[in-house]
């Protein structure tokens, strides 16, 4: 062996490096990195020089200029005199709003669908099946447009609004509801609510410990419910309802005052949720089916009730199968929310990636910001779900 190496020194250094598994992988990685870097360098340099050749530079100064456009739904103070940066924040918040509400609703409906799919009742089972197949096979954009069309055409104009007890009004321009303004005493109620949350965290742990030590089982759920909801509600009425409600009123073309939930938000939210829920339903069904029937039988033999079998045996194990694909559904929902512009919901794409881009002509900068924002959201969701997945991991004893 050694002699052979000595006789062919030239070939050997290269081939030895190449034949060594570790060095080879390092070499391949270096080459890959260099190629990727060169590619991006080429792209960026090209973009800059192409922009330069038509006299454009790359700069973020435009973000501090007044936006000069209005946005219909804004969670923060905003007017056409605000900056493009603020318009972008409005867009970000609108995207997050629909994403968070969407994830919650999609999860609830999705789990329900999953359970229905496992139902022994032929009709419910098949209904859930038909729903899932229909929804999954129609593009989400069509769901959004259809729902928006239905809301706009089916609901009445403000002057014929559907009147819900003279306090809330349903129209095709939105759902107008009273908006609260808080009196000082309200903060006592709020304080009790927060205290209730802390209490129940402590109490859950305490009850767990007691159960471990003595086997005594507290009705944790009901006690916590009382602490978080019951006591604050009681206090609210004892303190004389310290919230003043501003009731929307019809003035001219539209209702004024109060709060409004716009049809664009509702259409986007519901369409994204119901669409994603169909996928989640299948994931949940698969997750639960994967837990072998023997486990439930064994738990039943121990004398656990049906509810506790589900809670203690089936769901904790099923969750481990469900969480990873569920994460990608959450990511999909968030990214699909960029279809908002189709119905004029002012999200990231419609603000910074839309009107701002167009008025300032900064397509490179704006699109890069949009991409980075979606990337950030996706990474945040993934890391949260990974954290959660680790937490519920099967503890092997």
């Amino acid at each position, binding site marked *: 062996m050694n002699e052979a190496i000595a006789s062919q020194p030239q070939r050997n250094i290269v081939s030895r490096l190449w034949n060594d598994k570790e060095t080879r992988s390092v070499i391949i990685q270096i080459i890959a990195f260099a190629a990727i870097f060169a590619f991006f360098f080429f792209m960026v340099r090209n973009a800059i020089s*192409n922009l330069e050749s038509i006299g454009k530079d790359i700069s973020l100064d435009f973000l501090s200029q007044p936006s000069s456009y209005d946005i219909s739904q804004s969670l923060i103070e905003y007017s056409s005199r605000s900056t493009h940066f603020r318009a972008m924040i409005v867009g970000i918040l609108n995207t997050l709003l629909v994403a968070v509400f969407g994830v919650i609703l999609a999860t609830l409906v999705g789990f329900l669908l999953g359970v229905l799919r496992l139902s022994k009742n032929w009709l419910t089972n098949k209904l859930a099946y038909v729903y899932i197949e229909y929804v999954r096979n129609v593009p989400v954009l069509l769901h959004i447009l259809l729902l928006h069309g239905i809301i706009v055409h089916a609901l009445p104009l403000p002057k014929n609004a559907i009147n819900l007890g003279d306090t809330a009004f349903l129209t095709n321009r939105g759902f107008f509801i009273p908006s609260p303004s808080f009196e000082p005493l309200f903060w006592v109620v709020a304080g009790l609510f927060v205290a209730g949350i802390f209490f129940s965290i402590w109490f859950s742990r305490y009850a767990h410990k007691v159960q471990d030590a003595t086997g005594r089982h507290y009705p944790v759920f009901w006690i916590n419910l009382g602490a978080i909801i019951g006591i604050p509600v009681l206090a609210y009425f004892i303190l004389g309802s310290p919230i003043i409600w501003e009731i929307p009123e019809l003035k001219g073309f539209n209702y004024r005052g109060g709060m409004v939930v716009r049809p664009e938000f509702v259409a986007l939210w519901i369409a994204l949720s119901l669409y994603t829920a169909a996928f989640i339903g299948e994931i949940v069904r698969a997750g639960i089916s994967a837990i072998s029937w023997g486990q439930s039988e064994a738990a039943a033999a121990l004398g656990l009730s049906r509810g506790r079998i589900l809670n203690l045996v089936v769901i904790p194990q099923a969750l481990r199968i469900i969480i990873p694909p569920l994460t990608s559904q959450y990511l999909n929902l968030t990214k699909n929310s960029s279809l908002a*512009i189709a119905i004029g919901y002012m999200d990231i794409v419609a603000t910074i990636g839309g009107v701002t881009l167009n008025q300032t002509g900064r397509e490179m900068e704006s699109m890069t910001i949009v991409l980075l924002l979606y990337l950030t959201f996706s990474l945040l969701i993934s890391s949260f779900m990974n954290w959660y997945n680790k937490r519920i991991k099967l503890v092997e004893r």
Partner: protein
Amino acid sequence: MRVTKSAAVAAALSLTAFTAQAATLEDVQARGELNCVVTTGVAGFAAPDENGRWEGFDVDFCRAVAAAVLGDGEKVKFIPTTGKTRFTVLNSGEGDILFRNTTETMSRDADLKLSFLPVNYYDGQGFMIRKELGVTSAKDLDGASVCIQTGTTTELNLADFFRINNISYEPVAIETNEEGITNYSGNRCDVYTTDASGLASTRAALDDPSAHIILPEIISKEPLGGAVRHGDDQWFDIGKWVVNALINAEELGITQANVEELASAAGDNPSINRMLGTESDMGAMVGLDAQWAVRAIKAVGNYGESFDRHIGPNTQIGLERGLNALWKDGGILYAAPIR
């Protein structure tokens, strides 16, 4: 969907190593086709007819340029764009020239780096509303829901108008004129706002046009014109003088019907002779032949003919010449002379 388009164009900007710069004329002639950036559909200005052939006032300018440059007004590829995508499509080199109800503004010129051709339609932003609402002035629109096309100059004007008059509104942003019509006729908005010309065209497309009025207030100046990229002066000159030729043709009485006859031999009017190449070769100055203007006029007629055919009083759109009459007829259309 439109995101992908913007992103794609941004990617195209990064990837194309050689931008279509200086030599647009050669590029177009080598390709044998003019890529013209137009709307996604505004009846009378640019929209495909029932046979899929693009027709309209803006479309005619595309055809006139193609006729001058390629010898055939049919050799045009129309690229439909939204308010948002139009400039990126032009600046990335996908389009050679733009005729899309586009307002000339300082920022579009200096910041978006576009060179505007002479104005082909003097316009202003207006409001359309249902007659039954009994509104007679835009100042009475306090609290109204307003449909507005995103990516246009109209968003800024609208914000300014309501702010100056200290009244409120709910903007309903839509992307194309078609969605605008859907939302307006579905009563999602009380008012539709855009260029008055666009409103006339939109109104004609509604089920019962007579149930809608256009309010008297015009809240902005919207000089609409074609545009090309910065940096190719020869190509800019071609666009500019084709537009001027069509306007001058009306002034000089040259029409689609008589242009060939007038161009067959030099006549008594030196202006006509110069333009039609019977006395001197003006086309050579911009890299074309002497017959450039003859072909452009032959393809679409003079300015007035095109106007009357697509958007004039005898069409569905029914726009008066108004400001867009020739200067000698009381309008402000005044094209630089060809000499």
